């Protein structure tokens, strides 16, 4: 009897000890669910895993999570260590020497070496590869000449010294060069795999090798589901918590939402109507895109050369009402041309530094005044013009809203609208065949220059032909004289944006965002608005 009681006490003590020991272990482990599987929704197929030819967000997301480059982009597009253990930059900023880690392997067992980078970069800039993202290499020594077929690929400014030292030579300093290294098009490729699979390379999960946190499985090249599985060959596998991410393509938001409710998905995109209804849900998460939609005026036409007309048309837009009541898909009123949340300097967002209130704020009475003055300056009583836009829901909603706001408030304004397919809209913009067009621009990397470059007078995509010499000078200075001075460079870009806004060269309307639902138990997902969106390396599922 006594012994029995003692034994019981002993057991209790033993259990307590175990329990205490468990408490002492890493806190993330104790708060993590036992099953680390994430079920994620996609709205489109995965078209390719060939990083040289990929162009869409799904491909880039899968590449970012199954491959590893020199760096990996963390929260707020911060550069985190990837394969580089050491980076040396020359004084003039034109030469980078990366020392690579020795413990990362391809999924076919080969070691990841500096030669894989050299091979990959040469393959991408080779005109025969027909890479649509090769233009990002512009500025690396000889890249432009190679892309235009004037020089051979071996002249590209990248060199491997032994297996683990990589030297990159630039034609001129690229202030955002490190950011680019986190974009999949700059990741390494395994030459033997590319050559072995030939034209099948990257067309199915089995025709591909991986060196990132996860490996891709169950993708046939055209199916609607696939899985990212934890990669046990990854150099930093101890920090990868998820054992698998299951992707399902559901193009209908309603279907995806039903699956979410039934627990089959941990994340889903919301359509505009759903977003309006669910915006108070605790699962509601808005993913901002680095893309701004704006009115572009055709300034080869006399009426739009008039600044007052341009300002009146901007001031008449009630952006808050538009994004909340009309679009309702999580998009936000534009604070300026460069998107919000893209880049910060000394803790301050670019959009706050370069904010020009009058250029993006609704002011009907001021608009009426400016409009009347503008018409007088033009010597006309009324003005009719056409607004061109996409034939999507968002496009139709935008033109309808603009038409009613303009005709209601501005006397003598006659607006007709034209909604055409995206490709038609693009080609009409390029040909200058429009009065006013609702158009968008998205950044490839988290630097304001990715936006601002567009409105220099020499840029062929500056379809509205807005010109400002001061603007051109500032952008030029940011790339040359001020390129090495972060603060000066930043101020140049801030000033440039202010000039564009004060002159109302364009009228920003909204920043595109995506409303989503994410189960609160999903933690540690990193989302960036520019370049690659999702990074699941440190994501996990809590209890």
């Amino acid at each position: 009897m006594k012994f029995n009681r003692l034994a019981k006490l002993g057991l209790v003590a033993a259990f307590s000890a175990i329990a205490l020991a468990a408490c002492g272990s890493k806190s993330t482990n104790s708060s993590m669910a036992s099953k680390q599987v994430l079920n994620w929704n996609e709205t489109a197929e995965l078209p390719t895993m060939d990083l040289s030819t990929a162009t869409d967000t799904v491909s880039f997301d899968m590449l970012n999570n199954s491959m590893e480059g020199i760096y990996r982009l963390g929260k707020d597009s911060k550069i985190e260590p990837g394969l580089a253990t050491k980076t040396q930059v020359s004084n003039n900023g034109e030469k980078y020497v990366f020392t690579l880690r020795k413990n990362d392997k391809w999924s076919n067992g080969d070691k990841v070496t500096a030669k894989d980078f050299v091979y990959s970069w040469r393959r991408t800039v080779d005109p025969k590869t027909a890479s649509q993202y090769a233009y990002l290499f512009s500025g690396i020594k000889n890249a432009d000449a190679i892309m235009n077929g004037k020089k051979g690929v071996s002249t590209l400014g990248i060199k491997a010294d032994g297996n683990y030292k990589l030297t990159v030579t630039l034609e001129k300093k690229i202030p955002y060069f490190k950011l680019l290294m986190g974009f999949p098009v700059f990741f390494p490729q395994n030459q033997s795999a590319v050559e072995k699979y030939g034209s099948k390379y990257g067309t199915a999960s089995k025709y591909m090798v991986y060196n990132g946190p996860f490996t891709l499985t169950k993708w046939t090249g055209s199916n609607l589901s696939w899985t990212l599985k934890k990669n046990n060959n990854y150099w930093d596998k101890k920090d990868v918590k998820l054992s698998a991410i299951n992707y399902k393509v559901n193009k209908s938001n309603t279907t995806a939402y039903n699956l979410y409710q039934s627990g089959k998905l941990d994340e889903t995109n919301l359509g505009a109507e759903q977003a309006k209804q669910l915006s108070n849900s605790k699962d509601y998460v808005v993913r901002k895109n680095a893309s701004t939609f704006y009115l572009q005026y055709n300034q080869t036409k006399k009426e739009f050369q008039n600044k007052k007309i341009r300002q009146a048309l901007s001031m008449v837009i009630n952006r808050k009402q538009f994004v909340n009541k009309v679009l309702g898909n999580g998009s936000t009123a534009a604070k300026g041309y460069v998107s919000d949340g893209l880049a910060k300097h000394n803790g301050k967002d670019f959009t706050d530094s370069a904010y020009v209130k009058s250029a993006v704020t609704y002011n009907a009475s001021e608009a009426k005044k400016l409009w009347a003055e503008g018409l007088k300056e033009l010597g006309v009583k009324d003005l009719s013009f056409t607004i061109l836009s996409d034939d999507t829901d968002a496009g139709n909603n935008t033109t309808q809203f603009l038409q009613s706001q303009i005709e209601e408030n501005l006397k003598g304004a006659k607006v007709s609208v034209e909604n055409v397919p995206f490709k038609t809209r693009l080609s009409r913009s390029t040909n200058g065949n429009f009065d006013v067009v609702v158009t968008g621009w998205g950044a490839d990397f988290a630097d304001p220059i990715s936006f601002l470059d567009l409105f220099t007078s020499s840029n062929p995509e500056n379809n509205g032909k807005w010109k400002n010499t001061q603007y051109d000078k500032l952008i030029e200075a940011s790339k040359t004289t001020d390129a090495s001075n972060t603060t000066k460079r930043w101020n140049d870009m801030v000033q440039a944006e202010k000039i564009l806004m004060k002159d109302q060269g364009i009228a920003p309307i909204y920043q595109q965002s995506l409303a989503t639902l994410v189960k609160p138990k999903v933690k540690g997902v990193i989302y960036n608005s520019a370049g690659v969106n999702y990074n699941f390396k440190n994501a996990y599922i809590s209890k």
Partner: protein
Amino acid sequence: MRKYLLKRVFYMVLTLFLVATITFFLMKLMPGTPYSNQQKMTQQQIQIMNQQYGLNKPIWQQYVIYIFGMLHGDLGTSFQFSNQPVSYLISSRIGASAQLGAQAMIFGVFFGIIIGSIAAINRNTWIDTTSTVVSIIGKSVPNFVLAVLLQYYIALKLGWFPIADWGGFSYTVLPTIALGVGPLAETARFVRTGMVDVLNSDYIELARAKGLSKFGIVYHHALRNSLIPLVTLIGPYTVALMTGSMVIENIFSIPGIGEQFVKSILVNDYPTIMGVTMLFSAGLVAIILLTDIVYGIIDPRIRLSGSEG
């Protein structure tokens, strides 16, 4: 009969050739390039890309190259899915579409005949009225509305079938119903009308006078005659099922071909547009030929006049 068939097959090939030609040139009239990133590429780069893909050649040359390739069974490589042959894109996704279409057709026609027959036999009773009302609803409610309702109530609320995705038979039930209700309603209406006419005719009166059972009369005499007009509907049904499946595939996340087609047009994926158009046209032309042959078998009068012409 053989001469008739040969002639028909010749017309079929001619039709397909015309479809290929017209589609090819219409497609080339669409503005823009197949490059999703064209805004950010320089003119020079676009030119180099065009060279790589043979898009810088004169259009007639591109046309000749395409037709020549198609005759050799080469449908080209997709732009959107880089390096993926169009023939693979189609073959890997046609299965689901074909299965869904076939199931919907069988479901619609089978239940349509049953409901139509029952309504005709019980003419002017509550059964007839109910079936008419059901038919009208089935015909007028668009299939995507029905699909969403089925998905919400039957799959999400009751949990009887999966919400979406494509796996075993259970995954096909709701999309089949959603897609098959249209043909079901139409079939029921046709069969009822046809059978009411037949049941009023003299030879049925005779059969009845001979003392044949009710079932025997309907099955052996009435049904066969009232099915003739139905055969003409198979062609239009096929078209409806092909186009309808684009929406249904989207709602139930089925890896079919319909949705692929719409997407390929939006992104100027020339080889995929051509490939899928040719597939759809070939399917339609074949179905039309098939219905004409079946028509002949069911109604000998048509077969006779056919062989004369």
